[in-house]
């Protein structure tokens, strides 16, 4: 019996301790309520810059917003949402995922006050991209514009090359570069588990320039088949560049094995051999440090020239939209904070990001290049969101990527497009 009472005493003590822990736990919980968890795909430098933005919000409001980025974001956010343990806010790169989450009721619609902020500060296209079934869910913050060609300014001008305004001028420039012993393009498709997206961007740009925005929209929504003659025609334009070993640094093989971020680096080798890289505004952060330090003097940029005059030079872009999973205090405040220029200016000053906000002050951009790109983005007559991010994942994050890789790897263009068409979920 002595043993028994000892055991009981032990249990009693344990229960008492546990009560204490419990009480402390509930206390902690109320403190933790100030925390807002934000989850997204971007990491490293970009996350550090976003942390600066968050700091402004925290200092202003007293909340404790925390950002966490993961390379496996797209898988994890899904698992977390289904398991009922989502973050408070997530930055979704694909509007398609937002639709899925909204349909299942995982994410909460924005409050009317946030929506009115969006109406006031954004062009309608951004509200539409963040809406599902007539309700607004997403707020765009940092976005990117992709239809740009970068060149090493000094070497380019030293050779006497002129920025091409039309596709024919571009073709003439390519041949001139080859004649001078140079190589026109450096292209890199490699991007880990997303290898191929650079190719999809190229095809989307070509679609906008050869078939126009309306056909582009039909293509995105699968109202025309993926292997429609219009798409075949657009792909043909790319083939003339991709598959011509004289036009591409290292030939087709190097397109596949070269990382998209590394592919801009050969432009700044001395002596200059390679002259052009088509990529989004974010590519400046991948340039060698000494080029970045002297961006305006070293780097030139022009929009990918128009192919069919009728369609001009539309701008292709993309961006993460922030959505709300938990309506706890501070979350909607953070969302409306994102619509203000105050939440963008610090990042614009450091560089590496464009903002679609109508209320922005272009003078805040740290360099003239990004200022011009931001103006081009905000004032674009035709802006279209990255098609691969709008298509179902089977295509947009699957067969479209592999298809572009197969095409560069030597597979017939029509066969590639047909196999993508076959993979479209029905």
């Amino acid at each position, binding site marked *: 019996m002595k043993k*028994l009472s000892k*055991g*009981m005493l032990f*249990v009693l003590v*344990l*229960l008492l301790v*546990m009560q204490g*822990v*419990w009480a*402390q*736990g*509930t206390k*902690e*919980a109320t403190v933790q309520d100030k925390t807002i968890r934000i989850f997204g795909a971007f990491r490293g430098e970009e996350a550090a810059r976003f942390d600066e933005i968050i700091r402004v919000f925290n200092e202003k409001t007293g909340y404790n917003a925390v950002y966490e980025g993961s390379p496996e974001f*797209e*898988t994890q956010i*899904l*698992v977390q949402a289904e398991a009922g343990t989502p973050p408070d806010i997530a930055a979704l790169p694909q509007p398609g995922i937002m639709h*899925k989450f909204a349909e299942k009721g995982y994410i909460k619609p924005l409050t009317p006050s946030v929506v009115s902020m969006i109406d006031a500060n954004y062009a309608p296209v951004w509200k539409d991209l963040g809406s599902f079934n007539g309700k607004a869910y997403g707020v765009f913050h940092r976005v990117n514009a992709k239809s740009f060609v970068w060149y090493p300014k000094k070497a380019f001008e030293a050779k006497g090359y002129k920025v091409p305004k039309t596709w024919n001028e571009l073709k003439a420039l390519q041949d001139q570069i080859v004649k001078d012993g140079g190589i026109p393009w450096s292209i890199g498709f490699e991007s*880990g*588990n997303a*290898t*191929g997206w650079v190719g999809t961007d190229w095809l989307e740009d070509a679609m906008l320039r050869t078939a126009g925005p309306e056909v582009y929209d039909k293509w995105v929504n699968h109202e025309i088949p993926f292997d429609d003659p219009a798409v075949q025609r657009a792909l043909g334009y790319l083939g003339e560049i991709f598959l011509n070993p004289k036009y591409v*640094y*290292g*030939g087709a*093989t*190097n397109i*596949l*094995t070269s990382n998209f971020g590394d592919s801009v680096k050969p432009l700044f080798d001395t002596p200059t051999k390679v002259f052009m890289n088509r990529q989004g505004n974010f590519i400046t952060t991948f340039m060698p440090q000494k080029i970045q330090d002297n961006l305006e003097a070293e780097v030139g940029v022009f929009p990918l020239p128009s192919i069919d005059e009728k369609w001009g030079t539309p701008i292709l872009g993309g961006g993460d939209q922030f959505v709300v999973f938990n309506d706890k205090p501070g979350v909607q405040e953070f969302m409306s904070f994102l619509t203000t220029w105050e939440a963008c200016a610090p990042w614009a000053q450091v560089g590496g990001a464009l903002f679609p906000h109508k209320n922005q002050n272009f003078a805040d951009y740290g360099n003239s290049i990004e200022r011009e790109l931001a103006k081009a983005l905000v004032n674009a007559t035709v802006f279209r969101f990255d098609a691969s991010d709008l298509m*179902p*994942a*089977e295509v947009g*994050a*699957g067969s479209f990527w*592999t298809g572009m*890789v197969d095409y560069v*790897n030597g597979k017939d263009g029509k066969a590639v497009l047909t*196999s993508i068409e*076959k*993979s479209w*979920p029905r």
Partner: protein
Amino acid sequence: MQLPRDQERKQLAARTLVVGPITLIVAISGFLLLKNNPMSQILTTLFAILWGTFTVLALFYTMNLIVQLFPIQKYNKIIPFVFVGPAILIIGWYLLIPTVRSLVLSFMNRSSTSFAGLANYKYIFTDATMRTAFGNTVLWLLFGTAFSVFFGLLTALMAERSAIEKLGKTLVFLPMAISMVGAGVIWKFMYAYKPLGANQTGLLNAIMVGLGGNPQNWLGSAPMNNFFLIVIFVWLQTGFSLVVLSAALKGVSDEIKEAARIDGAKEFTILMRIVLPSIYGSIVTVSTTIMLAALKSFDIVYSMTNGLYGTEVLASQQYKQMFKFLDYGRGSAIAVVILLAVSPVIYYNLKEFNKREVF
């Protein structure tokens, strides 16, 4: 154990009445506390370990007390279930329910909202990418397993006669400590491609160019790229097969070998007729274990090519369908097919285990 006398039984009953409710309270309140998750991560972990261990002990103790109230014959019959039962229940919960659920999901549509019949199975047996995945998985099974076992056996045999046995075995065994994804990252540098004229950062291409050849994109063209991936798998698994087979070789009786030598048998004959048959059980175990690893091989493909250039395997397709394309039906159907493919191997393996007690 003696049949408890009346007094002892009364005592036992009293003890049960006290201990039982306390155990229940501790178990339930701890569970609720963890469920509400109010503590920091470290506190939660510490608490979970302490509470978990204590609760399990207390539960077994209480159950034992309750069963002791029965007469001894019944006690002897019930008690095995009390001790083994929870383990079986938990394993069932972790393994059986998900398996059954996968089976059910594999017959449903992508969002598991309505039945789709055999559509998912039709897809995985007719789609072009899936056919590639099946073909490649067979390649992995055959060559991955064969080479791993062969090289493991070869090094084990050589190590026996070598002066640097320990060092050699350690070197071959070392890659076992590297994760598959880690190995993928390392081998990316082996296969790295840079165009002619640029600095070759990849070892293989540096050798190619050094010998005056052209750099190759080793991972770019099927079917050879599958073998370049399988090489990594073999590099990782040879160590495992070496260790097991080497241990088995030590167990082959020297007297029989000596007797064979006296009878005039050549070394090769001894190897084929005596050594190999004696370690047959170990070879089977090693082969089947590596086969299972090859069937599940996902990490290497995922980190090296992500299934591009015709290197897709079943496991990588399953992951993509399930978590990238969010098609639970197809993902589950592939999982079921992998499970069916694994089953005979596991069955055979278990049979061998029972027969020979290899380890």
